[in-house]
């Protein structure tokens, strides 16, 4: 083996060694960075949606609906201090749903999502206004998006008896879909225990915008003309 070849091999070996050491350091730095970001997210979540306490809080066994399988929800009985006021009670439940899944695999709503506002109209329609991460961080897909909506709807309908319907907004705005697939332009029917819909049998029904959930009367095969492009339904991409 020539001297030059030995020299080249030596340089190559040193370069590989330096690369391996650098890669290891970089990998550890990335991991630390990820941990830091995760801690920051948790801290931000605490600032955005601090635990809510009210004078009427009573510790009860709430049913929180988290994922039991990738396509299945199951209620988890959780002792929570819940307010007698429906709005505060709903906020407390949504906070628990986001902040306290028993395991990461059971999470249905992104950890960074925050409930910005919650209102109940006189007719029992709940309006839940979430921060952008609900849309931007929910994994795109029919199943994952429907699971997010269902976990929210079922948690609310099983613990706040006065709610009848649910409208989901993102940062104060109606959006076409949650993350590219599931329709958020309508209003979801809620069925508190004791009402007709069987618990766990089907997702909350979605009423078309501007209508009730009652199916229309039989009509012609062809629907009326599509809404104008200015309408929300003209939006096609998330």
């Amino acid at each position, binding site marked *: 083996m020539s001297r030059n070849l030995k020299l080249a091999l030596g340089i190559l070996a040193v370069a590989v060694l330096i690369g391996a050491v650098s890669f290891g350091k970089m990998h550890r730095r990335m991991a630390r960075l990820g941990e830091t970001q995760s801690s920051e997210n948790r801290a931000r979540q605490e600032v955005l949606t601090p635990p809510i306490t009210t004078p009427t809080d009573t510790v009860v066994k709430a049913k929180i609906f988290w994922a039991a399988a990738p396509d299945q929800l199951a209620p988890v009985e959780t002792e929570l201090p819940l307010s007698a006021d429906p709005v505060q009670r709903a906020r407390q439940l949504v906070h628990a749903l986001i902040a306290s899944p028993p395991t990461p695999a059971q999470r249905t709503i992104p950890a960074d999502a925050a409930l910005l506002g919650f209102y109940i109209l006189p007719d029992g329609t709940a309006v839940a206004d979430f921060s952008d991460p609900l849309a931007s961080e929910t994994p795109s897909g029919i199943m994952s998006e429907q699971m997010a909506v269902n976990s929210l709807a079922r948690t609310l309908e099983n613990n706040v008896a006065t709610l009848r319907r649910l409208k989901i907004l993102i940062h104060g705005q109606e959006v076409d879909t949650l993350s590219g697939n599931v329709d958020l332009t309508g209003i979801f029917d809620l069925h508190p225990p004791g009402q007709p819909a069987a618990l766990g049998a089907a997702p909350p029904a979605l009423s078309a915008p501007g209508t009730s959930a009652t199916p229309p009367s039989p009509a012609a095969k*062809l629907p009326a003309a599509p809404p104008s492009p200015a309408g929300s339904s003209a939006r096609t991409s998330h």
Partner: protein
Amino acid sequence: MIVLDPAHGGADPGARGEGLLEKDIVLEMARTVRAELERQGYRVVMTRNDDSNPSYDERAAMANAYRDSIFITLHISSTGQPGTARAYFDQAAAAAPPAPGAATPNVASPAPPPGLLPWDQAQQTESDASRKLADAIQAHLAQLFPGSAGAAAPAAVRGLRSVAAPAAAIEIASVSVPKPESLTALAAPLATALVRGIAAFRAVDPNGAK
């Protein structure tokens, strides 16, 4: 007429994996499915055949323009057990009637003229047929995609809402597969499941697509 809808497209990639975009995979799969359906004698039209992104209304209008059409929208998920598949029907089909006295806050919209159907509610008149279609397809997906659920599921799929024809969404898991070819290899069993599922649907609904 079978209207095949590769979901997303253009600036909307859909689910994203390592070097994988839902919009590209579903387009490739739709082409395979189309070829198989045509081999079986069906007439097939695709809502897009390139990297364009027709609006939901434009996609629905393609199905609504034909008599006796069937609308199938193809999706790939971000999550779920890789290699499984699920058929969905519009969730209005699963809706229980509103409880007596339940509030209906937005009923102020004027009723459409007789004989017309609100565009946003077009799918509701096809609820039963869509559920049968999705169930028929899911029965065959369950056979060809091990680990898949045995029954179709209701969901508020945006792309189904305005379709005035039997319609189903098919979602395959997922863009998180380690090798892209393991996803594209699912196009053939998907085509088989759809051919068999549509045939089974037509057997119970003779008015289904020709």
